[in-house]
């Protein structure tokens, strides 16, 4: 699997993304700067976390309009797989590659902890190594992770199996009290209509080494390698 990682001014999780992609695929991803208008020919494009453009205006707003994101949108339309984590998810909603928006966490606090997540759909190129309903733990680190979409959009996402992950407790119970940040229907990650674009707030790339405190994130990367190699 060949991959690329997009870099914006203020991105800070690129090395974690590179480490996870390299561990799973055996080859180093190519780095692409935000001003580029063309992308290398790859199977997967990852938009890592951070604070692109200092989160000015809205998280992901500036990055969403940058030259490289026009190229990413073209690649998404052509069927290339795209994964956006944290700020990457915010950027994907700002470019309208994914519906909805990520707002300030409902309790207004920055959250930095390990979160339990329920795999809602295990029949995607990103999650096939997991079982449906499985509980995994990835770290979360965000201030603007409160997923919002109108109820019609939410119903469509659910109906089409496009909710990939939800915040839950250790037993997989999805409830208001297991909702970390106020997201509508506990949504932590969603897919686009074609299933080739995934956006998620939690960080699977920070759960790939026992020293991280867990290796649950490996499944996501090995799913992609299996599907895209």
């Amino acid at each position, binding site marked *: 699997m060949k991959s690329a990682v997009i870099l914006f001014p203020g991105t800070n999780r690129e090395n974690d993304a590179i480490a996870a992609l390299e561990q799973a695929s055996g080859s180093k991803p190519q780095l692409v700067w935000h001003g580029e208008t063309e992308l290398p020919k790859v199977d997967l494009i990852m938009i890592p976390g951070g604070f692109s453009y200092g989160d000015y*205006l*809205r998280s992901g*707003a500036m990055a969403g*309009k940058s030259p490289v994101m026009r190229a990413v949108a073209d690649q998404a339309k052509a069927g290339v797989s795209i994964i956006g984590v944290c700020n990457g998810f915010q950027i994907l*909603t*700002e470019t309208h590659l994914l*519906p*909805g*928006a990520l*707002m*300030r*966490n*409902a*309790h*207004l606090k920055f959250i930095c902890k390990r979160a339990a997540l329920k795999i809602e759909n295990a029949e995607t190129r990103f999650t096939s190594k997991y079982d449906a309903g499985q509980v995994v733990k990835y770290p979360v680190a965000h201030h603007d992770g*409160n997923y*919002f*979409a109108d109820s019609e959009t939410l119903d469509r996402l659910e109906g089409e199996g496009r909710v990939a992950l939800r915040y839950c407790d250790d037993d997989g119970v999805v409830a208001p009290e297991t909702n970390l940040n*106020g997201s509508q229907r506990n949504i932590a990650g969603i897919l686009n209509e074609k299933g080739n674009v995934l956006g998620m707030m939690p960080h699977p790339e920070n759960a790939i080494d026992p020293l991280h405190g867990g290796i649950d994130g490996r499944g996501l990367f090995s799913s992609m390698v299996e599907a895209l190699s």
Partner: protein
Amino acid sequence: MKAKVYITLKNGVLDPQGKAIEHALGALDFGGVNEVRQGKMIELDIAESDEAKAKSQIEAMCEKLLANTVIENYAIELIG
């Protein structure tokens, strides 16, 4: 031409920052505040001097960048 753009959250979109301000006002004994909604205001100075053209330019700016119309409304005030 100078203009101000007011960006506010749509009705029905929860505004946790507005809620926090509302609670803080209550804690400072300002009674009778029923609801607080927070937004932002952006000032622009653009070269276009024709009002109608200026307004349509700024509308395009709002649609493309200044507002996220999934969650936000915008209002444009031309100052001249």
